[in-house]
């Protein structure tokens, strides 16, 4: 069936609620209103308000409660309304969710998912465009997953819900309604730790995730016209990184450019560049380069295109690597 990303997420959530009687959704305005992005439309009607719960406005409270729910055998999936509003819950995620299995010496995990619409490009007000994946992937014990299209969103969400440990599931909201694509009627859980080669190539690899995959593909089109064979890798798992796929891309193409919309400093791109430097230096024909957001608050929306990596910026950077 043809679904956009937000519909695919809604479908995956419906399937999870259907197949797993222990699953519970909670968040602000997700019930009657179906979420401010409409990801949960119809689910409260279908599954009742014990399983699709409108919470009070208290992110620290309901994310903390999700931890408690896990202890009694529930599988909470929490929607945070917008990127920056997860920050009140960071203490629960960092001090508790990420440490729980470790505190039980590996015996018990917290099967919870935090769904976090994130990122820019939607002309939204302040604090509705952040890309905070780095902070989650820096803090131990959390998995961080970012889909790039409708199908990967559905499949990875199923995988996240079934993985047994807390997953920060970040949804690039600019891709929510970016066209409908084929999604299987019955979704199957995807592979949680796997990057995917969305286009093969031999001269250079563009590594991207979330909304940046589309930008990388656009850049690959331009570079193809210039005769460059460009591989595009959709990272999907921010933590852990798919080391094998990244190192193959590095060693097989010898040139890597990483694209992230988050600020540059200590970002995912820096981690990938360090990995390549440590483990594939001998195969490299050029330094690994980055195209990123800037080390500043996400600008008010008239300037957001300056923050967001663009096809021309990716192309220019790729050329620098190709001509190195």
């Amino acid at each position, binding site marked *: 069936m043809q679904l956009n990303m937000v519909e695919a997420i809604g479908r995956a959530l419906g399937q999870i609620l259907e197949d797993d009687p222990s699953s519970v959704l909670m968040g*602000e*305005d997700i*019930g*009657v*209103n*179906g979420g*401010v992005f409409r990801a949960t439309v119809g689910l409260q009607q279908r599954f009742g308000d014990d399983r699709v719960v*409108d*919470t*009070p*406005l*208290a*992110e*620290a*409270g309901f994310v903390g409660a999700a931890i408690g729910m896990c202890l009694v055998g529930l599988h909470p999936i929490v929607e945070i309304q917008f990127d*920056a*509003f997860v*920050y*009140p819950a960071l203490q629960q995620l960092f001090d508790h969710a990420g440490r729980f299995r470790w505190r039980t010496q590996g015996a018990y995990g917290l099967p919870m998912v935090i769904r976090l619409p994130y990122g820019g490009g939607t*002309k*939204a*007000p*302040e*604090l*509705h465009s952040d890309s905070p994946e780095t902070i989650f992937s820096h803090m131990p014990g959390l998995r961080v997953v970012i889909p790039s299209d409708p199908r990967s969103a559905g499949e990875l969400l199923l995988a996240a819900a079934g993985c047994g440990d807390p997953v920060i599931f970040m949804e690039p909201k600019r891709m929510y309604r970016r066209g409908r694509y084929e999604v299987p009627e019955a979704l199957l859980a995807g592979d949680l730790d796997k990057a995917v080669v969305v286009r093969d190539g031999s001269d250079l690899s563009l590594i991207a995730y979330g909304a940046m995959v589309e930008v990388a593909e656009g850049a690959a089109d331009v570079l193809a016209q210039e005769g460059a064979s460009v591989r595009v890798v959709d990272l999907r798992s921010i933590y852990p990184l798919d080391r094998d796929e990244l190192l193959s891309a590095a060693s097989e193409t010898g040139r890597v450019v990483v694209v992230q919309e988050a600020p*540059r*400093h200590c970002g995912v791109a820096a981690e990938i560049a360090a990995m390549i430097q440590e483990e594939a230096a001998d195969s490299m024909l050029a330094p690994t*380069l*980055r*195209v990123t957001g*800037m*080390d*500043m*608050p996400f*600008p*008010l*929306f*008239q*300037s*957001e295109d*300056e*923050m967001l990596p663009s096809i021309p*910026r990716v*192309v*220019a*950077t*790729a*050329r*620098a690597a190709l*001509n190195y």
Partner: protein
Amino acid sequence: MTEPSMTSPARPTVGAPGAQLLEGALTVLGDEPTSRVAHLLSLPQELPLALFSAMARLRAFDERAVILQRQGVIGTYPTYFGEEAVQAAGVLALSNEDWLFPTYRQTAAVTLRGCPPEVPLLMWRGHPGGWHDVMRYRVAPICVPIATNYPHAVGAAWGAKLKGEKVVALAFGGDGSTSAGEFHEACNLAAVVGAPVIFLVTNNQWAISTPISKQTRVTRLADKAAAYGMPGIRVDSFDVFACFEAVREAADRARAGLGPTLIEAVGYRLGPHGTADEPSMYRDQAQAGLWAAMEPLGRTEAALIEAGLADQQQLEQIRKSAAAALFDVADRLAATPLPPIEEIADSVHLRTPWSLSPERLHEPKWISNG
């Protein structure tokens, strides 16, 4: 002066649920006609019309902003239709030395301190000119993350007290914000340190689609004040004179060293949460309709006329000139050039780090030249 009447538009009926909610809430317009009139006449001569004018300006801003949003001149916009009384009273009951801590719902409050309206409109246009001059107006930048402005107000009030200044701080917020941890922490801290702060919480019964019944089991938010050891006052949010009294009293207490006050301005969100919201998806719009008669400008007009403080024509003139002041605001917005990103980047730190320098803001030259 016309004969005051009990059923004046100053005191409309709101139907059973509304009447119940407003029961016991501080009111002026809902009083007996004679005391209503007496109250208005007891105020400093300029004040009743000043409050009306402030509301008229706020209304004109809000109506213009909604139009500008439809025209694509600004982005998504949180209308405050019906909440003008709380804002006008909150600003006018304090002195210009006192600090205000608005949320996204009170973007135009700063205009009542003299800031040109295009400044808050630029904010919704996604333009950095939307950040008003915080120190000049003593109005904090508008706060989007719910409840996070409360502790700031506490700190400003407490700090002023430590410095021996008689300055009060007022934080705006909504019913939804009272569920968030920082509301609790701010109230508690303020009471413990005796901060001269006012928490002015508009209970419009809705946090986007979430009704107050799913937010808290307390039917009166003001009751929460007891848990912190501070007074909690309930006031009709559509009654600008009552709101003014509530804030003035709280400010007097604060200045007298008696610490914080929680004011619950009880009402109903007459409009959508914002321009992107569709309330019919989640609430019975007929109920909102019952509240429509409480709309504060109309009520105030009726009361001013009743008290002989103004005539219809004069009030219409005030509304018209408030609207007229905004007729060409779209041109002024369009004429405000967008600063280059290098300039915006240079505004993040006092000493701009190399990573935000014009040369390094994006990829270094050797890279961006391909």
